[in-house]
């Protein structure tokens, strides 16, 4: 089906599936088939922030005092995060928008992707502060073997879905030969590719960021690189919301609350979807190994970081019906929770103390018992 930017055939978006129905026409939000996406848009917009609001100038002094192995950990994590957000800043738009059929899901995707571009901009903000000439860092992202290996796995499901969508939207269903390779394009195949892609994105949002988050917050526990930590807290808060959206999409499919064919596909591709998640867990653990190859850092080592990845994976996998495959029951890095708590994320990051805006805050909740001591 050819894509159109304004579908002139009247449609009822309350009856459309999330994907592969009629293209969206009117961007209307007064009614929603899946109200969760409207709520996520509102929440995400309420989180709006700009990297320049966070003062990272003290980090430059801290960075000079880090050991060589700590510098390697810090910079490698920034490179990896830059890669992840480079992909996420464009891919949901390019892969999902052409096949979305609900206005609220369309706008959620745009809002989600836009926030990933803020994250990308914040890495430039951090690196420009640390280095007079940050080009070498950015250039290495494309050639670094460890990062390339992850980039391949992250982008392949997106690329596959995008390519098949392009074939379908320009040539329709059938067998199409491109550069000597025959591609079978039909709706079932397209939906399968979408399902695998969504699982890969879910795994990315669920665990791929967490090794680097843990390192950032481990520096902050030692009162080092705190400007960077403030930015990463804002990013982590956004990523939590993005994860919620992919979990909702996967569960709506699995539980048959959207396209019934997607429920069949979810069952059919259950093992493949789980393998995508397990592969992401494995790669994150290998990443921990690479980070600590030149030496450890205070408060963290490879073993504990791998346990944390497994602990987080258990929670994230059970949220989408994949069970809890790892044998870790308690949180190996309990202090992480403090950094991921949205109460501790500053609404006004220019204030240097995290809880400052809570000081003097008035508790507006009044219960009947509050008047017990009053006599008239």
């Amino acid at each position, binding site marked *: 089906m050819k894509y159109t930017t304004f579908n002139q055939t009247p449609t009822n978006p309350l009856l459309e599936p999330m994907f592969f129905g009629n293209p969206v026409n009117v961007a209307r939000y007064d009614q929603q088939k899946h109200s969760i996406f409207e709520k996520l848009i509102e929440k995400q917009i309420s989180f709006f922030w700009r990297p320049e609001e966070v003062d990272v100038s003290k980090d430059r002094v801290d960075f000079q005092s880090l050991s060589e192995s700590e510098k390697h950990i810090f910079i490698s994590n920034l490179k990896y995060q830059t890669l992840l957000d480079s992909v996420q800043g464009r891919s949901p738009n390019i892969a999902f928008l052409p096949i979305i059929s609900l206005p609220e899901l369309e706008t959620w995707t745009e809002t989600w992707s836009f926030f990933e571009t803020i994250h990308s901009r914040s890495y430039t903000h951090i690196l420009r502060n640390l280095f007079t000439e940050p080009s070498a860092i950015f250039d290495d992202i494309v050639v670094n073997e460890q990062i390339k290996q992850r980039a391949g796995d992250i982008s392949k499901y997106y690329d596959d879905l995008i390519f098949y969508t392009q074939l379908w939207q320009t040539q329709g269903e059938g067998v199409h030969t491109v550069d000597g390779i025959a591609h079978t394009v039909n709706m079932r195949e397209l939906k399968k590719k979408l399902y695998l892609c969504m699982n890969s994105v879910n795994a990315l949002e669920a665990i791929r960021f967490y090794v680097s988050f843990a390192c950032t917050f481990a520096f902050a526990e030692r009162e080092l690189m705190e400007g960077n930590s403030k930015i990463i807290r804002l990013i982590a808060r956004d990523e939590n919301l993005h994860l919620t959206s992919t979990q909702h999409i996967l569960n709506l499919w699995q539980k048959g609350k959207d396209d019934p064919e997607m429920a069949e596909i979810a069952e059919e591709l259950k093992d493949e979807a789980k393998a995508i998640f397990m592969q992401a867990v494995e790669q994150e653990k290998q990443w921990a190994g690479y980070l600590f190859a030149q030496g450890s850092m205070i408060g963290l080592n490879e073993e504990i970081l791998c346990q944390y990845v497994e602990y987080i994976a258990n929670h994230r996998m059970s949220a989408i019906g994949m069970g809890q495959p790892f044998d870790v029951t308690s949180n190996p890095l309990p202090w992480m929770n403090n950094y991921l*708590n949205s109460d501790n994320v500053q609404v006004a990051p220019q204030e240097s103390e995290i809880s400052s805006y809570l000081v003097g805050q008035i508790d507006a909740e009044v219960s009947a*018992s509050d*008047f017990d001591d009053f006599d008239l």
Partner: protein
Amino acid sequence: MSEKKPFVITLESDHEPIHTDPSDTILESLEKHQIEVHYHCREGFCGACRSKLICGEIDYTTDPLAYIDDDEFLPCCSVALGDIKIKLV
């Protein structure tokens, strides 16, 4: 006026049942009794504290955005409306 009655939270584990403070969320009540609960946002949008509600009724203080299954709830933004039995995921 009488004080609000504290409710009892029973856990599906070896832990003793605990009494809630009516002004606390279920997560806060659990934490006051040194029960480890995984949490992140504490505002109902991340789903990190997602737990099973085995019996009893709860009410949300904030509309939860995170995905929760039919038999699950979020302790971070809910209060007990009576005695409840839960299982931490």
